[in-house]
Each structure stands twice: as C-alpha cells, then as structure tokens.
C-alpha cells in the first residue's frame, strides 16, 4: 500500500458526468438488459410485419399498421425502466450507489439520462425497422408508405421516442415504489389495464392515458376516426399534444421519485 499522500483526490467534485458513467456501466454490464432490449425490438418489428401481411385495405393508416407493435413493445421498455431502479433496492446495491453519489437526485438524473438515451436509440431503431418491414410485407397490391408522405416521418419518429418516455415513467415509478413486483404491477396496470378500463367508462379521459396517446396520437399520420362510427369516437390528442402529455407524465414521475429518493432513508 502506497502512502496516502500519493493518491490525493483530483480537483473539483463528482457530478452528472461521473454519475452517468457509473449508470452506463451498470446498465451495460447486465446480460438481462441486452436480452430485454433485443426482445423489445424483435417483438415490435414482428407485430408490425404480421399486421402488414394481414392488411387488405389500402385506405388504412398503413404507417399506423406498421407501428402496431410499438404499444406492446413499450411494455418491456417500461418494465426495464422500473427494474433499473428497483433492482438496486432488491439487491442492496442502492446503498453502495448512494454512498458513492450522496446527492441522490443526481443519481436519478443520471439514470434518466443514460436509460432515456439508450431507450431513445433502441426505440427509434425498432420504430424505423417496423415501418420499413411492415411496408415491405404489404400484399394485395397495396403500395408501401414512404417517409415523405404527410405525417409519416413524424409518426415513426414519435413512436420511437415513446419508448424513451414510457421507459422514463418506469424509472420514476421504480424510484417511488422501490419494490420490483409492485412497481411493475402499477406500470402494467396503470399504463395498460387502466387505459382499457377508463376507455370503457369515460372515453373522454381515456385519450390522456399513455397507450391511447401512443396508439392513436403519436403513431398515426391522420386523425383517428374509429373506422366511421364518428359519433362514438373520442377526440384524440394531436401528435404534439400527445408527446407533451407523455413528457409531462415522465417529468412528474421522475420529480416525485427524486423527491422521495432524497427524503427517505435508504
């Protein structure tokens, strides 16, 4: 062991760069991360292809059909987001993490930056491949949609971004709830089941639930009309309003999670 004086700490102080570097190593060093991401991408694309093959009506929103796998794919993005936070509690790693970075909101911010960036990249990859694969598998003489048609590029880009935003909602929920099973339950129940349930009792409110936003606002190229039964069709949010709502949900979940993380004993 060398003398203490030889290893004086560098100037300055740890910050977001160090915290994010730690979170990046943590995320990439788990095999389960890569498996989950691979299944997310493959599942999203697979559903897009299946819907592409079975599409028979050229008047459909073909882009929306090709992106049909996005909403199911988001489930894994959300669950992975939850686990990046709750696995720290189930393993006891959280105490090592907070001893290394005692400014706790910085830990959550670093997780959000790292996980959000990875999920944005993976989401765009899944979205673009789904779009092209879904278009390529169209039969029945239907022409594939192209990115320069109105609203198409927007729908593909925002669908990709939704993986990042739902993932961040998961990170926030994980920080709030801390327990993997309960947080995944709230994630799946709140984001998926509740949307269906609310849709049955209050159509006006259901348009604000995350999966309705993704399915009917972000991934569409034109206003959804429920196939002609216009009288019964809720007024879906526009793509940009939907994106804003998802950002708001993620921001609120992370803000509450950060506040609780800083407040509670670890």
């Amino acid at each position: 062991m060398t003398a203490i004086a030889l290893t004086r700490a560098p100037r300055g102080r740890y910050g977001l760069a160090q915290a994010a570097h730690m979170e990046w190593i943590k995320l990439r060093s788990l095999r389960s991360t890569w498996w989950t991401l691979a299944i997310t991408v493959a599942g999203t694309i697979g559903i897009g292809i299946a819907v592409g093959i079975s599409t028979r009506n050229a008047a459909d929103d073909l882009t929306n059909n090709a992106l049909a796998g996005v909403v199911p794919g988001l489930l894994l993005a959300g669950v992975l987001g939850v686990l990046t936070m709750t696995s720290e509690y189930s393993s006891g790693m959280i105490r090592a993490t907070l001893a290394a970075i005692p400014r706790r909101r910085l830990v959550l911010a670093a997780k959000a930056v790292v996980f959000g960036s990875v999920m944005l990249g993976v989401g765009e990859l899944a979205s673009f491949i789904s779009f092209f694969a879904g278009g390529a598998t169209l039969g029945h003489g239907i022409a594939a949609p192209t990115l320069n048609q109105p609203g198409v590029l927007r729908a593909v880009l925002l669908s990709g971004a939704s993986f990042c935003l739902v993932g961040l909602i998961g990170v926030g929920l994980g920080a709030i709830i801390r327990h993997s099973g309960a947080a995944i339950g709230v994630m799946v129940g709140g984001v998926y089941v509740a949307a269906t349930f609310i849709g049955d009792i209050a159509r006006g409110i259901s348009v604000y639930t995350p999966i309705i936003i993704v399915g009917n606002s972000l991934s569409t190229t034109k206003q959804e009309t429920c196939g002609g039964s216009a009288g019964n069709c809720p007024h879906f949010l526009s793509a940009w309003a939907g994106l804003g709502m998802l950002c708001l949900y993620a921001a609120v979940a992370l803000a509450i999670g950060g506040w609780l993380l800083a407040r509670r004993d670890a």
Partner: protein
Amino acid sequence: MIEIRDLSKRYGPTAAVDALSFDIRPGAVTGFLGPNGSGKSTTMRLILGLDTPDSGQALIGGRRYRELRWPLREVGALLEARAFHPGRSARSHLAALAASNGIARSRVDEVLSMVGLESAAHRRAGKFSLGMAQRLGIAAALLGNPRALLLDEPVNGLDPEGIRWIRDLLKSLAAEGRIVLISSHLISEMALTAERLVVIGRGRLLADTTVAELSARSASLEDAFFELTSGEAEYRTLQGRTS
C-alpha cells in the same frame, strides 16, 4: 477524525441510536462493539448519510458525508455483504463504483488482487459464497484508497486465512494514519485486531476506551464486555448469557 455528535435516530417507537457521541481517531483500529440491535449498523448508516438522523450529526474531517467532494476517496464502507447486483460481475460492479468517483480503472484490478478475487473477477457475483461476497465488499471499500474505513462485521464468512489477512490489512491501514472502524460481536476477534474500543448498548454509549483498559477491568475482555452491557441487550436468551 470522524466526530459523532449527539446523534439520535428512531425507527417508529424504538430509539436505534440515542444521543450518541464519540470520536474515531486515525492511527489505530477502533472496534465498535455492542449486542445485536444495539445500533452499530444504524450508526454507520448515519455516518454515510444513508439514513437521516433525527438530531445530531456525524462529521468526517469536519464535513457531513453528503458534502464530501469525492466520497469514495475519503470514506470506504462495507455495510452488508452482497450490496451488489447478483447478475453483475465483480469487475463490473467495482468499475461502476470507480467511475462514480473518477477513480482510475487500473485500481479495480489492484483491489481485486488485494482481496484475492482476480480469478473470479468475471463471474456473476450472485454466485459468490459469503466469504467471496465479503471480499468483494472489502474491495469496494478499498477502491478509493480512502482515509477512513468503516467496516460492519468484516470477518463474517471469511475463512481463517481470510480473517488473518483482514486483521493484518486493517492494522497496516491504521498504521498509515487512516481511520479504521470495525464493528463486530466477536469479542475475541476484537481483542486481536482493535486497539481502541467503542461499546454501545440500546443506542447509547457505554464505553469509549482501549482494549487494554477494558480487559484490565475484569478477568477477560469478554467478561468486561458482559458487565458493561448487562441490562443493555435488546435480544437475549432466557438462560442468560454466562451459562
């Protein structure tokens, strides 16, 4: 120096730590003794800012833990074996911690070889035995070459060779002028490793002394400990402890 000043922490109706004050000085291994549930681990969590005290404070070189600029370079801690994700390798676990405090990557291999885990560095840490997990925890504590070490039950799960190794290591680290605090309920181990002793019971300070002084009070260090902590243990068998 680590200064514990009038530190109190309650969990519901129980006072885990109750107006505790003592200093941990550099240059000697300080043993932290007390019966189960006496507040040793809580005190360590309070020093590290993991739990927030109801009153009082713990200062490391005059600063609270949360104010440290590079925490792992100033304080290395082992709180529980297995404070790591079971799916991550020992090397990745240490690499993540090193990155958080700007510690050179080469230091990861250095501490892995210090604790004898080089050959297991790439294995999933979840498969480690208790002794190996303990070694990984010690490696994490040493990572930042810190001036202060706080180790909760460091010999837990270690084989006789490991116990002697950690004993010699802690003594040499203290001799270099570092602060070394180790908790244990193994009094015989304390007698061999520690020079100073802080004894607590029910969260309160019972003695802040040296091993030599406390041993001299009674037939043995163990007897002296029992005299000191009689009536202070939170959990005790019906037959009593001296049977």
